[in-house]
Structures are given as C-alpha cells and as structure tokens.
C-alpha cells in the first residue's frame, strides 16, 4: 500500500464518514418523528441545517480558545475516522489500535469542553461537567468490551479483527463468539453516542442545551458535523468488533444503520436520566454483563 494510495484513503474516509453520518442523523430524526406520529424532516435536512449554519452572516466567538475548541472537536473526529477501517480502505488501523481510537475519540469532547469553558457561561460549564461525568460512566463498560474483544481476537489492530471474523463467515462474528460482550456493548452504545436517555448534558429547558449554549453559526455547524461523526464512529466500531466489520459496502451499510437504529429507537421512548442515574445505570448492567462475557470469553 504505497503512500499516495494511503493519502487518498486518509482524505476519503472522513468524507465517507461524514456522508454516512448525515444519513444516520437523518435516520435518527426520522425515527423520532415516526415514533411521535409525525412526518419528520425532509431527506436532506441535516445538510440544509449545516449549510445554513455555516452560511450565517454574523457569528460570535468568546476568544481564541473557543474557536480552537470547535476546530479540535471536528478535527479530532476527522482523525478518529482514519483509524476505523471500512470496506476497501484500512487507513491507519495498523498504526494505532483500538485503544488509540478510544483515546482519540476523547479528544473532541476535551476540545469542546475547552471551547465551552471559555464562553464563561454557567450553563455551558454545568453541561460540560455532566458530559465528562457521562463520559466517565459509559467509558468503563465501553473499555471492558474493547478489552474483551482485543483479548479474544488477540490483537488490537481493527483490520486484523475484521480479517479474523471474515474467515469463518457469519459464525465467526464477534456476536456469535461472545454474545454477552456484544450485549454489553449494545447496552453502552446509547451513552457512547450521547443520545436520549443519557443526554442530560444537553437538557434544553434546564441548562439551555448545556455546552452548546453560546454556539452560533459555524460553531454550531461544527458541533452538528461532530454529531454525524460521533454516530458514525460508534456504529462502525461496534460493527467492526461484533458484526464482522465491512467486507463490501452493500453488507456494511445496512449493518451500521441497524446498529445505530436499535439504540435510537429505544432511546426516544425514555426521558432523560439524572447524572447519577446515568452513572449508576452504566456501572451496573453493562459492566455486569461485560464481566460475565469476559469470564466466559477468557476461560
């Protein structure tokens, strides 16, 4: 794989991720609408929102760190996408394994936290403190699942993990080999994606959408782009670990959308949990199931 091919891949993967991410955002809003017996937004609504936000004539910024925060948020995920192998493009999977990916996924939230910090808005700070607590909550089962998968496959390189699962076909999938770990992953997924029951940090009425309180125009646009990447990364990582990852696109896309659709459908029916309930929930069931899965997988 020579350098130029790799560079093309590095350019292509984020774009692909962005487009699929937009589809996921649309699907999320459609599911939410359909559950409320509404028609839901038109097909290209996420694109319209983003273009409108970037097209805003005036924007306010609270300082250089506010701008750098948004740049880190979008840039962090662009870098994270290159670590996620997709059919035909392995990107940097072998350069940094799944642990590196888990850490690179933390950079955008830290960047956003810095940006919101400089806005000097109490709502923002409360939102960020809740977001970081939620991250502490969901990262423990998430890391357990990653450890289990890395141990069972014996490697942290995602490209190898896909290859191993592809060999035995469907029976080789992570889901088949370690069902409990897959279940734990699925339980933790809504929190990783930061969706409904676990998005107390965007509580609109209570703290005016928390971190996004002072985001206008291109800042808000950046966060919408980040949301697409967030959904995409969570979905693709789960598929790579448990659903045999991407061999060809036609099987890969339905898998990702299915993986993302399940938690979203469940999510829209729940009210938001308080922060301590998020932690209690995330540390109780997913961790329990995860540990059992680990015990089974490691014997």
């Amino acid at each position, binding site marked *: 794989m020579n350098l130029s091919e790799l560079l093309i891949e590095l350019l292509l993967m984020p774009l692909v991720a962005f487009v699929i991410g937009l589809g996921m955002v649309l699907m999320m809003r459609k599911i939410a609408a359909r559950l409320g017996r509404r028609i839901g937004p038109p097909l290209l609504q996420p694109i319209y929102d983003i273009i409108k936000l970037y097209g*805003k004539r005036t924007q306010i910024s609270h300082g250089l760190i506010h701008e750098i925060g948004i740049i880190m948020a979008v840039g962090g995920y662009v870098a994270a996408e290159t670590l996620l192998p997709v059919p035909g493009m392995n990107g940097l999977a072998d350069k940094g394994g799944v642990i590196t990916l888990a850490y690179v996924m*933390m950079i955008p939230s830290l960047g956003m*936290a810095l940006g919101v910090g400089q806005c000097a808005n109490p709502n923002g700070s409360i939102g960020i403190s809740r977001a970081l607590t939620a991250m502490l909550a969901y990262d423990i089962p998430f890391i357990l699942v990653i450890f289990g998968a890395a141990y069972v496959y*014996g490697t*942290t390189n995602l490209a190898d993990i896909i290859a191993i699962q592809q060999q035995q076909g469907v029976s080789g999938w992570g889901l088949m080999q370690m069902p409990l770990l897959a279940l734990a992953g699925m339980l933790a997924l809504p929190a990783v994606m930061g969706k409904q029951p676990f998005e107390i940090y965007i509580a609109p009425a209570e703290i005016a959408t928390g971190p996004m309180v002072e985001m206008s125009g*291109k800042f808000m646009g950046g966060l919408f782009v980040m949301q697409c990447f967030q959904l995409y990364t969570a979905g693709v990582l789960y598929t790579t670990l448990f659903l045999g990852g991407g061999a060809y696109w036609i099987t890969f896309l339905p898998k990702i959308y299915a993986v993302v659709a399940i938690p979203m459908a469940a999510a829209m029916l729940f009210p938001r949990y308080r922060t301590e309930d998020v932690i209690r929930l995330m540390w109780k069931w997913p961790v329990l199931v995860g540990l059992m899965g680990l015990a089974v997988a490691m014997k």
Partner: protein
Amino acid sequence: MTPLDQLLLLSALTVVVPLFTGNRRITGPLATLLYTGQGLLLLRMAGLGYGSETPVSSAVSLQVLGLELHWRFDALSWFFALITIGAGLLSSWFASGEWAQRYRDSGSSLRLFHAALALNVFTMLVLLASGELLSLFIGWELVSWASFLMMSLGSNTALRYAMRYVTYAFAGAMAVLMGLVLVYTRTGSFEFQAFRDAVPSMDADTVWLLFGLFAAGFGVKMALLPFHLWQAKAYAETPGPGAAFLGAISSRMGLFAMIVVLVQIIGVARLVELPVPFTFLSGRDLLAWVAVFTIIFPTFTALRQHDARRLLAWHGIGQGGYMLLGILIADDLGSAGGLMHVFNHATYQAVLFMSVTAVIHRTGTSDLNKLGGLVARMPLSFLAMLIGIIGLAGLPPMNGFVSKWLVYRALILEGSPLLFLGAVIGTLGTILSVYKLIHNTFLGQLRLEHVDIEEAPSSMLWPMMILSTVVFVTGYFPGLVLDWIASVQAAVGLPVLAHHLGGVHIDKGGLDMIWVVSVLLAGFGVGALVFLSGNRSKRVHQLDNYAGGHFLTADTRYQYSDNFYPGLMHLIGPWYRKSFRWLEGGFVSTVDTVSQLMQGLYRHTHPAFYLLAVVVFALSWVMGGD
C-alpha cells in the same frame, strides 16, 4: 577522576555555592548554570543511555567495619539522573527570576531554598550511583532528609506536614535497614551480585519477609497506598519551584530503589512464584493491586480538592501507581511503559506545578473557587497548563498517552482485565479532575480584580515553554525516550522493547505515534478549514452572554466552579470515609496510650518494690534452673 566523580563533585559544589552567594539575585542564575554544567557532564556519559557503554564506576571506594562501599552509574541510574538534573535545572531557572525577588521579600531565605534544591539533586545522584545495598541505603537516607529540608522551607503548616513526612520516611528507612541486614546475614556481604545469587536458595518465607520489608520501605517514599497520606499536603506546601521538583522526581526515587531490589535482584519471576495463602494471587499480583488502588483512590481524592496545588500533588501519587503497575508486568511492553511514564510524568507534573505557581505569583491564590478567566491575561501559562493536562490525562498528542498505551497493551497481552479496568478508571478520573483544574483557573469569567494582571515573568515562562515542547516532542517521537528505556531494560535484565522513532511495532497491533499525531494535526487542519469556511466571527465581551434574558453585570460572579461534579459526588460521595486517615489516627493513638502506660512506670511508684520483684523473679528463675 572518572566522569561520575566529576559529576558528583560539581553537584556538591552546587550545594555549597548558594550558601556563599546567599540572598543576592545572582544565586538563581548561578545555580542554573551549575546545573547545566552537571547536565553536560552527564551527557558525557550518554553512552550509558544508548546501551553502548559499560557501567561507569567511581574511583572512590570506602572500607568501613569490614564492609566495602563503592559507587557506579549504569543505564538505569543514568536515565533517572537525566530526569533529576533536568528537573533541577528547570526548577532553579524558574526560581531565579522574579519569583526569587517575591520569595525573598516575603521574608524567607533564598540561600536556604537553592541550597536545599541543590542538596536534593546531589543526594539523588548519590543514591542513583549506589553500587551495593549499603550505599543504596545511605543514599536513600540522604535523599529523604534532603527532601525533608526542602519541604520545611514553607510556612508553619509546611513544617507540620514535613514533620509527618519524616516519621513515615524514617520508619520506611528502618524497614529497609532491617531488610539489608537480613540480606547481609544470609549472604555475608551487601553486594547486589551476592544477594542475586542467594535469592534462588532462599525459602518462601524469607523472600516474603524481604519483599514485604523492601516494598513497604520503598513504598513509603513512592506513596503507595497505605502510606500515601503524607505526600499530597507536603508537596503542596513546598514553595513553588520546590514543589515542581519534588512532584516531578522525588517520589520516583522509591521506584528506582524498588527496580534495583525487586526487579533487578529478586526478579519479578520469583515474585510470581510467591503464593499468597488462601488466594490465587501471587506476590506480584498483590503489589500490582496495591499499585492499581494507588492509581484510583488518590485520583478520585484529587477530584474533590479545591486547591490547585493539592489537586496536582494527589495526582502525583496516582500516577506513581501506573509506573509500578507497568514495571510489575515485567514484559517488554509493560516495563517500557512504566519506565517511560517516569519520564513523562516528570515533565508534565513539573510544567503543571510551574504554571500553578505562576498563577499564584500573579493572583496570590491557588484556590480554584477564587480564580477564573485568566486565559485572557496569562495565555502562555494557559498553553503550558493545557499541554500539561493533556499529558497528565494521557491523551494522544502528548507523551503521557504513549506510556499509558504501552501499559494497557501489556495488560491486554497478559490478559488481566480487572487491573486494566482499574487503570482506566484512574485515567478517566484524571481527565475529569484536570479539566476541573484548567476550567476553574483559566476558563470562565475573569474576575474584576484580575482584569489588569499580567502574564508570568519571562524567567518563569521559559522553563514552562521548554517543558511543554519536551512533552509534545516526546509524544510525537516517543522513540527518543524509548532508546534510553531499551538500554535501561537491558541493564536491569528485563526483555528489551523493539521500537522505532514513532513507537512500537508489534504484528498484533502496534502504535506509530508519528502517523497518529500527524493525522491528528491534519485533522485539526481540516477542522480549521471547515471552520474558516464560515463567515468572520466577532469577539464579544464576557458579559454579552445568554443568561435566560437576565442582564449580566461584572460584579456578579456567575462562574460555576464549586462542587464541580455534583452528579458523580452524589453517587460516590458516601464512599469517601477517610478510612486511611482513620487508620493512621488509630495507629498513632495506640502508640500514645502505650506510651502513657510506659510513662506510668516512671511516675513516683515505689522503686524498691520493683527491685525486690526483679530480684525474686531472677533468683527463682536461676534457682529453679539447676
């Protein structure tokens, strides 16, 4: 006069020079020059760091009471010496500019501070150069007393905490001495080699006893869990640059000694065979679990601190756990991770302490509830703290990530999920508390009284900038540090890590930081492009803020800083029961009551009665004898 002797001589000179130049302004720069001299002398022995040279021994050797003392430098001591002299250099540079003036005006003596710092560096070099167990112990005692001197330079409370440290340190030293003498009686000499040859023949109980004594003795200095209460307060109260130095390297001397004794001599393999009765754990697992709990408990205590220095000091304890955990895994990845974490932690802990001292220098307080919004007035200190906290939290662009990645990769390969989980809980706790630190100090609402403060003086900024660049560069090219570590692994007898400039290449998932960080920077570039595609944004005043239709005014303080993680504290609040402080209190009160009992003996009781009792007892025992 071998290079080692020259180094030790110059280091001793650095101790003497401040005593003469005294409180004048020249002391700081002069001391910094002397440290650079020491650094150059150390670099002359750089071969040690790259595995090419054999250990450099010192010409001096003593023959006392039939015991032979000699000193030598090998790759391990060279690596630690590099960090020590680097930290000493930058701390004294930090302490030589405006800070020195302020310190002197506040009535404390600059002579004593620089002498104490130099003494610390000298004693650490002596410890690192120890050739056998006795000189190791002598160096160990000198280091603990030198850091006692450094800690007691602060206010009265500093004296109290330094006093508490001395009790812990000396008790630990007594345990180590006991261990030494036990070894001497078994092997007949204090040589490392003799001890190493005798280990296989020792039965399990003696190895348990030695392991317990050495682990406890050295653990006190490393602030392992049961003995960690003294460190946070003592380091927080030490004057600014002193805290930066102590935080960076002082408690790693315990790790050095532990590597020398537990890893180099007894060997981790032997520890694995030591069974803990009634459990499936081995000696190594026991220490690994102590290390993991040392990661978790202090980090979550740091979360609750509202004084910046205390928060950082508690993190110093927490990060020590990673180093020990890494070394205890003892394969090429884990030990490299543990050793590299020593270097990484020294760099970002020093820069964090320095930036907090700069904030104290300008605003007068380090209480997180009284600061806020300083990024507008102290941007470079903010940059230094930002790079420091990304390092401390172990996130990719900085070097903290590489060492944590190595430790995690080793834990995965070795297959111990609970240790892995404990370490990750520690990392997440760190991320939470470091964000609280930077948010409450630099971000948020700038208070009225801080509107016209200035950036830290240049004498403080230069060390911070140098350290931040070191943190970033060694994160980008970890190979630079991994070379030294490979030679250390070779010297200590651990499997050597195959590495290249970017990181580690293993077929089952390696790490190439050059690619990861370049992609990250490229990602930031793309993010910037996407960001700049929008129209120009306008900077607004901090009062032009959404507050639910309320008109914000400058005199109201709306910064959210107290009880920063209410949700988490709501859940785990009751778990903070200060059980370790209760344990320490319990021990002290038992000693107190027993001492009261003994004093009762000497009150005006009837002495004659005692005499009679003893004699009758002795006679009966004797008469009974034949």
